[in-house]
């Protein structure tokens, strides 16, 4: 009994966590395509490690490098005042100039002042603005915080379902109610026990002997049947009360 209940809850949780993660993944995938198009001003992507310059002569000073950088009229920047990061990377022998707010970077050879690589930092951009960060940073935190915990839970419930799969009922009895019909199956309507419901169903064309074709049936929600060229949606409570003849119509 406990195992059945646990399995039921595992399935439910697994499904809904899966839906949650699936939606987030969809959002993430869409953002990966759409957001760079919206935010990138048309510069190349600058992802990956910075280039390493040739060693030898002493590097230029920051002012000299800046002057050389601006002399080359780089794309995406109008004046040096826009830069909010100017750093020397001694390991690579380059200067990095960046406008952090716009995710733009330029790598300048420290020795010659020549621009080696420049463009849009899409990795940092997606880390900061992805997963609804473009709406508000708080929204990202709200969405991301339970993500890892839920992912672990998804794995546990998934494993449980794999090890204890639902046992399929063998020789399922056909009780003859509407909800037991398979999709596309065509049977004859037999009747209902309640007089008032009988009148109501008769008015919409459900009369004894009339063939019914099942058009839509799911695990929950109303079912759709075809009765005398009319599509009817019946609630499950009604469907459970409608008796069908076992002979195919």
């Amino acid at each position, binding site marked *: 009994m406990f195992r059945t209940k646990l399995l039921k809850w595992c399935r439910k949780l697994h499904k809904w966590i899966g839906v949650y993660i699936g939606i987030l993944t969809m959002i993430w995938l869409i953002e990966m395509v759409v957001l760079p198009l919206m935010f990138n001003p048309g510069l190349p992507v600058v992802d990956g490690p910075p280039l390493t310059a040739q060693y030898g002569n002493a590097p230029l000073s920051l002012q000299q490098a800046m002057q050389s950088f601006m002399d080359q009229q780089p794309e995406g920047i109008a004046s040096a005042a826009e830069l909010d990061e100017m750093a020397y990377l001694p390991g690579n022998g380059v200067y990095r100039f960046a406008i952090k707010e716009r995710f733009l970077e330029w790598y300048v050879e420290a020795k010659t002042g020549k621009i080696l690589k420049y463009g849009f930092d899409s990795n940092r951009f997606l880390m900061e603005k992805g997963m609804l960060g473009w709406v508000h940073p708080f929204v990202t935190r709200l969405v991301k915080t339970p993500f890892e915990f839920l992912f672990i839970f998804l794995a546990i419930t998934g494993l449980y379902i794999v090890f204890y799969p639902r046992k399929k009922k063998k020789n399922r009895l056909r009780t003859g109610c509407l909800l037991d019909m398979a999709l596309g199956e065509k049977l004859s309507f037999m009747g209902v026990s309640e007089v008032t419901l009988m009148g109501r169903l008769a008015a*919409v064309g459900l009369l*004894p002997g009339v063939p019914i074709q099942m058009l839509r049936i799911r695990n929950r929600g109303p079912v759709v049947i075809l*009765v005398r060229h009319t599509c009817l949606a*019946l609630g499950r409570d*009604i469907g459970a009360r409608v008796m069908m003849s076992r002979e195919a119509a």
Partner: protein
Amino acid sequence: MYPDENKLETECGRCQSCARENAEKNIGAVTGKEEIAVAVAGQPNTGKSTIFNRLTGLNQKVGNWPGKTVDRKEGRVVRGDRVYRLVDLPGTYGLTANSVEEEIARDYIVSDDPDVVVAVVNAASVERSLYLVAELAELNTPIVIALNMMDVAKHEGRMINARQLSAAIDLPVVPMTASMNRGVDQVFKTLDAIDLQHPQKRNSVELPSEVRRLAALLDSPYSLPYPKEWAASKLIEGDYKVIQAVKNALKDGKWKDEKFKAIETFLSEHKEAAKAIVGRRQQWIDEACKKAVEDVKNCRSPSEKWDRVFLHPLWGRLIAFLAIPIAALLGILLGMFTGGQVLFAAMEGGPKIKAAWPGMIGSMVADGLAPALGWITALVCIIGFIYAIFYFLEDIGYLARISFLTDTFLRRIGAGGKSAIPLMLGLMCNTVAIAGTRVVETRRQRLVTIVMLPFLPCAGQTMVAAIFTLAIFPVKTAIIILIGLTIINFLAASLAGKFLSLTVPHPRTDGMIMELPLFHRPNFRTIFGGVRMRIELFLRRAAGVIFFGLLIIWAVSYFPKGEIQTSYLYQFGRFLEPAGSMIGLDWRFMVALLSSFFAKEITVGTLAVLFSVSASDQQAIMQAIQNAISPAGALAFVVASHFYIPCLGSMAVLKSELGSWKKTLPLLAGMFILAFALAFITYHAAKVII
């Protein structure tokens, strides 16, 4: 015919609608022409309203059925020596009433005894539509069958031979396609040919002998307001209303106890008779269709293809949840680009009017009359466009699909699939939506839907919230606040619905039985007819309240000395200020909140008056709000405005639908307390955070 009928007429003659009806009836007598009452009846989705619109043209009058909030449409057509008074009855599947609409249609046909019934039958599903005809044929009223949607039947691969159908049931059958105006004149020709002096010959359903035997038991000097044989068949079929009528007759002392017991005994002994009645009707339909209907094999319905997408559990829901807000937004935008321009023009002209007529007259015209007329024009356009879009979706058969898709979720909170449409309408106008809950089948589900609706923000409330949040916060934050608030509104509505569904007794309801109509081309005449009717009803019921509400606000903000700083409004606002200070609002915002009682849309207009800026100048209003209120106070105002009691129009409809002030007032009091409590929490929490 029945002794009770006289009493009913006398009682009914007192009310205005019946007095008007009687006066109209006399027109025929005055002009010397014979007046013929024609009931246009039919099952839902048979094109009944299209036929009615085609038959009557623009000669229509819209009103309410006496004592009900269901629309009643009537039209008059003069042909030769006859004046036809056509009444568009609500759609009904049969003469057993399962909803208020079906009860109205049934009672009009059975008790009001029209001279002729035009029974509209959908040719695409003729076997199903003929069930109502089978029931009508059991009465003595002459019938003309309008076999509509012949074009749809052809598309669906069905060939209907109207002549053979007419010969089989011995009733006149007019094949027609009302949407294309085909066969409409033939209906009148058939009506002209009907001889009302002699009973119409027909091949009616032969009911089982139990019906006649029970009818004999009903024989008494004091009879029911129904024909005896018909009442007997309905008693056997378990029609709740007819059983109630019998019980009421017993209560009035007209029948003896023994007689009722005898009826009860008869019913318990002949339970199978109901099956026999239904069986006979089915036999009648089958015989009628045997020769007249031919199905072209392997013809696939185009609706099936569409339903794969529109009824898909994921795509169908996605489309529905996108389509409805887009439709609503489109309606509002179109309304603002048309009627909204009149409002802006009226408001911009204010200073010029004041300059031309200084003093009270100028102020009244500039600040009272012109904005009031502008608001009403804007609202008429918005409501018109919204209804045009929704009628379009309904006419092509899509709204029924939305009900189907939302049934699973709504049933969990006590409502039903059919509640989806009023709930979605509630996001635009609560007044219209509450009145529209009549489409919901069971009383319990309707009650849950009605209680949920005031918690949903209407377009006016959303507009107020948008202006406040945009005035105080950056755009992104404002959007987050608006979305968050709407989610809270939905949660509150769902909780209210769930709470009510748990407390109200849960009778075994008959659940959802809904037809999913075939997709077909829209009929713009029907759509415009519906829009015209809605606008007419709005002008009659709500426009006056809004107009005078705005005038009252102007008056209390002008008198006694002609300036707002000494006005009654100011004094009242000052009186309320201590309560307002608890949620960070000064007297002006309290007054604006109070004025929203008349219509949510006038909140911003009131603030414009109080800040002495032009109501059309959104920037000026936003600037004034920015200077007058703190961010925490603005949030509290938005929360209070979203949960505050509904407007006057909604309250009137709410009372009418709930039946009494005893049920309405606790709901309103609950909303008022909730609004204040939430605003209080929001204000103090926001003060800490911001």
